[in-house]
């Protein structure tokens, strides 16, 4: 087994997920569209995005969610540890913004060795902290 796998006993309520940053580039969003099959023009065509009221294309909600999941599975050291996630998409993400995934352990279940985290993503938009994903939760099965 892998040495970096996080153990249930190492985790405490209140622990923070190490923040994971990603600068959102147009080419990343295009690569995500191709890999996921979500070819909505809102994520590729600036003219279309402007026609529905945005200044330019926005990232897929699922693009941000995938980044958040990367942060979780990196922390756990095992992609199989994630048992559930439920997110709310509350704000859009524009190109060249820095998306930061975060989380905090809110509960531990000793009988199942599962931990629950409150999770979010954030961007700094002109000095304002904006949370594209908020009021969201994930659960991981640890060893």
């Amino acid at each position: 087994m892998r040495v970096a796998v996080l153990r249930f006993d190492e985790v405490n309520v209140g622990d923070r997920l190490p923040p994971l940053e990603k600068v959102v580039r147009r080419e990343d969003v295009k690569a995500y569209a191709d890999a996921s099959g979500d070819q909505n023009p809102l994520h590729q065509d600036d003219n279309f995005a402007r026609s529905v009221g945005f200044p330019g294309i926005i990232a897929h909600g699922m693009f941000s969610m995938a980044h958040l999941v990367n942060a979780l599975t990196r922390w756990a050291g095992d992609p199989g540890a994630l048992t559930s996630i439920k997110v709310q998409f509350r704000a859009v993400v524009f190109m060249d913004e820095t998306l930061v995934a975060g989380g905090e352990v809110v509960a531990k279940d000793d009988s199942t060795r599962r931990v629950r985290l409150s999770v979010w993503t954030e961007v700094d938009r002109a000095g304002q902290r904006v949370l594209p994903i908020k009021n969201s939760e994930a659960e991981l099965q640890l060893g």
Partner: protein
Amino acid sequence: MPLNQALKGREYQEVSFPVERDHVVQFADAIGTDDPVFRDPEAARAAGYPDQVAPPTFVTKMQILTSGQVVLDQELGLNYAMVVHAEQEYEWRRPVVVGDVLVATPRIADIYVKGPHEYLVIEAEMKDASGRVVVIARSTLLSRGTAGG
């Protein structure tokens, strides 16, 4: 135009989705993860998996195929230009690996109104060849301002 509430509970055609090695690598590249278990079957086996592992949100690819049928259903009356992805939920019973062939029958789990907006909940239980549930996906789409009238 409001959504057709009578379609609550409607089931759509079964979708079959083979999990292929190259697609998993392409997806891992796109989401920017370098974990070798997503790329190398040997690394995955060394970590205790039967084969190369798909990143957890790889199933989004299947979900897009399944929900496509729902959003394009003429009887539902959804105007896709007004749609925003409001919520997404996944429950994994086990990790998805290369070689899995997942099948799912998408259904409209709910349609409800909140303020001026309508919400459409699409659920898909993704099962493997032995009929066991692998992932449950639940998407909530918000239809902006379509509740009235």
